[in-house]
């Protein structure tokens, strides 16, 4: 055990590098996936049949074919078609398209479940399409979609572990290296899985903060400050945290 810990200590800079690659992929992939999800989610509610149809096909396509197939296709086939991308770009792209397609369903569903009266009110006020979406509908849908998006984000973090197949030295890659360095499978993978677990929990925590803020800005639920306050005043519970 003592030897293992010594090897781990020597190895730690590489593990940190691996974590950074994994985080880069997770954040890049999540950002890309969010853009894809919102674009496809909004498009699949469009009144133009062609746009709506295209969005549905794209969503079903990227949901229906597996992440690894998409990753390999981008990595092995694109160069044959004359498009050369960095492995990191390929990884981010595959994650963004795959999880973005799942996210599109979440965005579509959340927008659909915003109260009808809210839509009618925006019409009554004569708001333009973009204005209505940006100021009224999306902020409410956003609060609804965060829990599902949080799940997808964890899935995405876990999905990044396949990029070591396309030559990226992510956390998974370095865990396998640590196993070879220590010759102790149980030790190396316990360390690796624990790091993944902590990362997932931190991401989940971050998403909880986002959810609290989104709900609070709609006047539902307490604000972050009220949650952190060590002794909560009585009135906060009655008032429900309205600003």
């Amino acid at each position, binding site marked *: 055990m003592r030897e293992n810990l010594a090897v781990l200590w020597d190895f730690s800079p590489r593990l940190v590098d691996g974590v950074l690659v994994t985080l880069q992929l997770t954040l890049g992939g999540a950002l890309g996936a969010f853009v894809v999800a919102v674009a496809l989610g909004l498009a699949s509610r469009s009144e133009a049949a062609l746009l709506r149809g295209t969005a549905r096909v794209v969503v079903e396509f990227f949901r229906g*074919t597996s992440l690894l197939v998409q990753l*390999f296709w981008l990595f092995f086939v694109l160069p044959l*078609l004359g498009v050369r991308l960095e492995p990191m770009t390929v990884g981010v792209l595959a994650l963004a398209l795959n999880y973005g397609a799942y996210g599109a369903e979440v965005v579509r569903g959340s927008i659909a479940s915003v109260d009808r009266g809210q839509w009618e009110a925006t019409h009554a006020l004569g708001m333009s399409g973009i204005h209505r979406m940006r100021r009224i509908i999306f902020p409410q849908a956003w609060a609804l979609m965060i829990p599902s998006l949080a799940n997808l984000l964890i899935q995405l973090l876990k999905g990044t572990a396949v990029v070591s*197949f396309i030559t990226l030295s992510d956390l998974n890659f370095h865990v396998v290296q640590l196993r070879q360095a220590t010759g102790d499978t149980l030790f190396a993978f316990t360390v690796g899985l624990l790091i993944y677990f902590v990362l997932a929990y931190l991401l989940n925590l971050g998403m909880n903060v986002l959810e609290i803020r989104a709900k609070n800005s709609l006047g539902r639920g307490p604000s972050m400050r009220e949650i952190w306050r060590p002794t909560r005043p009585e009135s906060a519970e009655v008032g429900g945290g309205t600003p």
Partner: protein
Amino acid sequence: MIWSWERALEALPLLLEGFRITLLATVLGTLIAAGLGLVIAVLKRALPTPLRQIVHWATEFVRMTPLVVQLLFVYYLLTEVSPLVIGVAVIGIHYATYMAESYRAGIESVPKGQWEAATALSLPASRTWRAVVLPQALRATIPSLGNYAVAMFKDTPFLFAISVVELVTSAQQFGARNFAYTEAFTLAGLIFLLASYPTSVLIRRLEKRLAHY
């Protein structure tokens, strides 16, 4: 010419052979996940608190860590066991932790009065579960289990990591041997799409039907 029909036709039998393993892994994995998931869900309700906490954290740990890393872990740990057996077991256990959550939601949807009625009739715990709670809970749970089965199907390519010759591994091998990645991976994607899309549609229908009772 980028696409060759000849090579595509040549790849097809190999891919279908790989697809057979993919299906086998999915079916066996689903059986393990559905069975173990139910056991976890019931244990989480029935066990005393400290034990329940252990089950809770163990399942959280499995749920929140990557399937590929888990596969590699067990693969290197149990070098004597066949990769396919390891793959099916790990995928089954991984998805059991997800299905347990579905069962939990299903069990919670059973009205409290049903539990009280079972107590009033002084049914033993095992009969309460078997005859009263589970038949009602499962109805709400089945579509969600189906969704996870489809998700599992789309995760079987991860078995590539431990060299199980499923669909993606066969595609990769064929592509490397003949330098025909375009045909191999495109066909692999199409096979996934052809199998998973109709299944998702069926599950959506099942969901609608079971919801109206």
